[in-house]
């Protein structure tokens, strides 16, 4: 009962107007136009605009809803009789937020004739969720936002430079690519040491493990309310 209430509590005003509408509109338009001539010009535009800029910004918009100060977190834990409901409420609201954005972009990729790309976009949901939940536990809201942006935008940009090199990348970098930049990794799969299916599987398992780790850490977390 209290977990249901917590989910409702966290999903209220999850999509603040008009920021979400503008960003969603931008993502859909950017995805559409950057994929329109991708067959001839490649996926460079789509990767830079959607994977390295718009999706991370959209992720931050969703994440700011669950990145809350220690005082607010303590208040909510007291309200919901413990950290379990708070964690599940935040997880659910972040999941719902990410599903909306990722599905919109994935749908554009699918109808443009790139189903594999759509799959890589949907893989953003568990990876973003894992990053959000672990940052939420360990860092304050500002630190979490900065770290989230670095991990979801700056690192994929760096990986993109690596993927332009002619030689293949080792297993560790390949795994990192699938986890932090799945669209890039899918497009450049031949340069990676892991196949797309193996990369996706490991990424999914890794995401679930990080979320579990975040849950356990959140339950055991010490707070400093000053």
């Amino acid at each position, binding site marked *: *009962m*209290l977990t249901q*209430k917590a989910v*409702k*509590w966290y999903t*209220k*005003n999850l999509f*603040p107007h008009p920021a979400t509408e503008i960003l969603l509109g931008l993502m859909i338009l950017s995805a559409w136009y950057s994929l329109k001539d991708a067959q001839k010009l490649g996926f460079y535009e789509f990767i830079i605009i959607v994977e390295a800029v718009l999706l991370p910004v959209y992720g931050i918009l969703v994440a700011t809803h669950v990145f*809350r*100060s220690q*005082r*607010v977190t*303590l*208040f*909510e*834990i*007291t*309200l*919901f*009789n*413990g*950290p379990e409901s708070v964690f599940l409420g935040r997880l659910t609201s972040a999941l719902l937020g990410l599903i909306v954005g990722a599905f919109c972009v994935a749908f554009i990729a699918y109808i443009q004739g790139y189903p594999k790309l759509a799959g890589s976009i949907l893989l953003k949901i568990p990876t973003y969720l894992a990053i959000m939940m672990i940052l939420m536990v360990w860092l304050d809201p500002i630190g979490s936002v900065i770290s989230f942006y670095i991990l979801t935008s700056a690192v994929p940009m760096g990986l993109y430079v690596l993927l332009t090199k002619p030689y293949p990348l080792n297993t560790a970098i390949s795994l990192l690519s699938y986890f932090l930049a799945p669209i890039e990794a899918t497009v450049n799969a031949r340069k990676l040491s892991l196949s797309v299916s193996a990369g996706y599987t490991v990424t999914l398992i890794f995401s679930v493990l990080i979320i579990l780790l975040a849950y356990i850490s959140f339950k055991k977390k*010490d*707070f*400093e*309310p*000053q």
Partner: protein
Amino acid sequence: MIVEAENLGVNYGRTWGIKDLTFKAKAERLALIGHNGSGKTTLLSVLSGIRHPTTGSARINGWEPYRRKDKWIVIRYSFEKPQFRIPVKVRDLVEILRANPMCPEVDELIEVLGISQFLERRIDSLSSGQAQLCNLLVALSCNSEVVILDEPTAHLDSYRAGIVDELISKRKGVIIATHDVEEGEAVADYFLIMKEGRLVWTGDRKKLFSSGFYEVTLVETGLQLPFETLYRFGATLIVKADVNELVEMMLKGVIAGFKRAGLRYAYAKSS
């Protein structure tokens, strides 16, 4: 309620928030008194179980709060400086409490605390006093073995502060931190005075008020009294005097009133 600590210490890097605290207090309502930065909130965070001590241990009724898995239910905690950036209405908060079978006093407290006047406001738009009332509602409306309140009336006007103090003084199992000596004396039956992370005075009401010293309020500031003045706080003096002489001076209108010296004296003396 028995609250005890043994060599209790908490550090923040190289700085100790509290250090070597050892005490045993048997009380229904315990007050921690101290100035800003004296370690009250740090001690409260250990007693409420939200952080582990660096050294030593703390116990409430024999159990260590930070080791209990059900600490969020047996201990209710209200912290200082409420600033809630939460995009929901006060009504949403109230509905959650109403749905919680462990919180039977929600509706009564909403009326008593005056929260019904701003039910439709968003929590992130409340004044600090209104946010504090919501904070107190969550802590006080639910059943628990211990309620821990950090500066519960710091943001409230004197009318609401009086109501809150009255509510607290009727409850058992309360630990309150305050720098307001009047509030401490109004609600608690055992006191711990803290300075720079250490305990400097402990005792019950009997010990506190048995000194034979008086706290006198002058009608005009700056007046000199024919008694030994130990401490001066504006128009409030701590004096060593005969009670009959004080009555006489009050009848003459020289002093507005007097009472046995309590926390203010104990606090000043322990400096």
